[in-house]
């Protein structure tokens, strides 16, 4: 559904953010990308979002190349990035064009209902807590019914309780709407709780070190032995990728 074909990104300064990255993501699949800072995981997301162009290679959604923000792709950033001059409802309706006014209103109401903020429709963004604002951002991205939703460390700025709450929330939204989810995170546990596959990246140049399939049924028990085992596995790969330079791994 999402196809990333041997994508490289070299920034004008010469930094090799991504080198020859390829990845296929199925419809309604949840893929989490983890890695240390500077591994190019956010760059990868920006390329899929169409906010940046790859230096070589290409990104496709249902065989259609992405060269600019695509109507079938929604984005949630690390910060809510709500428009402060619009009410919560207006923010959620921001990406709805084309549909008639009553239709838009119904969609906004449904989206707010889904994130549990139906009674906050007329508030201003600055009246929301961090978790509420990020839920509005989720609703805003999902209201146009994208086929793929990209999330760039969406819960990293929240406290642990709110984060776990929003992770569950994201899963129930996904269950209902079945979009493809591509999630960038530096939180291994978050990746393991949410994803069907975890892509581990390493840096200099940014590339995929390993892809871990997570076969555990949902909802996942964060303290089960299997979960622990997967966590150790992911940590082991990550440990390699940030402690040892590439040639050392090759030498092993």
């Amino acid at each position, binding site marked *: 559904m999402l196809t990333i074909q041997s994508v490289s990104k070299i920034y004008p300064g010469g930094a090799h953010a991504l080198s020859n990255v390829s990845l296929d993501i199925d419809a309604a699949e949840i893929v989490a990308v983890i890695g240390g800072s500077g591994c190019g995981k956010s760059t990868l997301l920006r390329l899929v*979002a169409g*906010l940046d162009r790859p230096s070589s290679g290409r990104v496709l959604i249902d065989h259609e190349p992405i060269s*600019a*923000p*695509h*109507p079938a792709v*929604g*984005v949630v*950033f690390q*910060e809510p*990035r709500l*428009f*402060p*001059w*619009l*009410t919560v409802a207006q923010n959620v309706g*921001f*990406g709805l064009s084309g549909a008639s006014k009553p239709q838009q209103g119904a969609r906004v109401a449904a989206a707010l209902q889904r994130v549990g903020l139906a009674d*906050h429709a007329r*508030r*201003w*963004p*600055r*009246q*929301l*807590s*961090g*978790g*509420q*604002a*990020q*839920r509005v951002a989720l609703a805003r991205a999902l209201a146009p019914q994208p086929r793929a939703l990209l999330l760039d460390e969406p819960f990293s700025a*929240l406290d642990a*309780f*709110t984060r776990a*709450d*929003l992770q569950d929330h994201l899963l129930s939204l996904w269950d209902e709407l079945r979009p493809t989810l591509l999630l960038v995170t530096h939180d291994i546990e978050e990746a393991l709780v949410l994803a069907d596959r975890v892509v581990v990246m390493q840096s200099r140049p940014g590339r995929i070190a390993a892809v871990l399939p997570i076969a555990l049924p949902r909802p996942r028990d964060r303290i089960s032995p299997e979960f622990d085992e997967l966590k150790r596995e992911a940590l082991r790969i990550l440990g390699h990728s940030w402690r040892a330079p590439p040639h050392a791994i090759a030498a092993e």
Partner: protein
Amino acid sequence: MIRADAVSAIDSLASVEPAARPRRRGGASLRLALLGLALPLGALLVWEIAVRLGWAQGRLMPTPSVVAANLAQLAVSGDLWLHIRTTLLRVGAGFALGVVAGTALGVLAGASALGRALIDPTLQGLRAIPSIAWVPLFILWFGILEASKIALIAVGVAFPVYLGIFGAILAVDRKIIEAGRSFRLEGVALARRILFPAVLPHYVVALRSGLGLGWMFVVAAEFMGASEGLGYLLVDGQQLGKPAQIIGAIFTFAVLGKATDALLVAASAPFLRWQDTLGQTSGEGG
């Protein structure tokens, strides 16, 4: 002198006063506001009593009642309205021209690096000239009548508006723009739906400083030769030794300046309601 005042006026406006400050409710703020009136009203009262009791002469510094009587007399004869009308028209025309020019140049400089490189150095250079220095030239160019006065006011208004909108465009959060781009907004649509509302609060502040300068420059303009206008009342009062008229004109300036500023704030308030919610943050957990 006027330039220094103007600059500090801009600074204080821009840094201290958000365009729409949240209104505090309750009696406490009202009582504080009344407290602020105590000093000037008390001083006036003391002066009035002192002159009435013969402790002071009050010839060069007339009492409030004398000033009021003078103003009332001007009002009854219809002269006051004539002067107010003339001055308001000058400020209005100069403000409108200055706002158009300042906004156009500011948008041009803010929107593109090329525009900035082309325009900004010249405008910063021109801004360094004390605006009153233009007076002789404007009189040569535009004559002694309305055109030169309006031109001077427009110059005074244009610079703060230019600086305000230029700076506001540069300061728009890149992340908000990117959020707009992720909804496939570009060009005019991006400007209309993201840049314009993001810039608006700063633009209102810039307009208010511009208007303040407009009032300052109308006085300078009317000093340079006018037969009508509140500035003329000042000059006339000085030349004919009528301090009550001078103080009356100053008072009228204060009222008009405050009223037009309040008008500007009121006109922009509906668009800035989203700012007016400080302290109402919902405390519920997310």
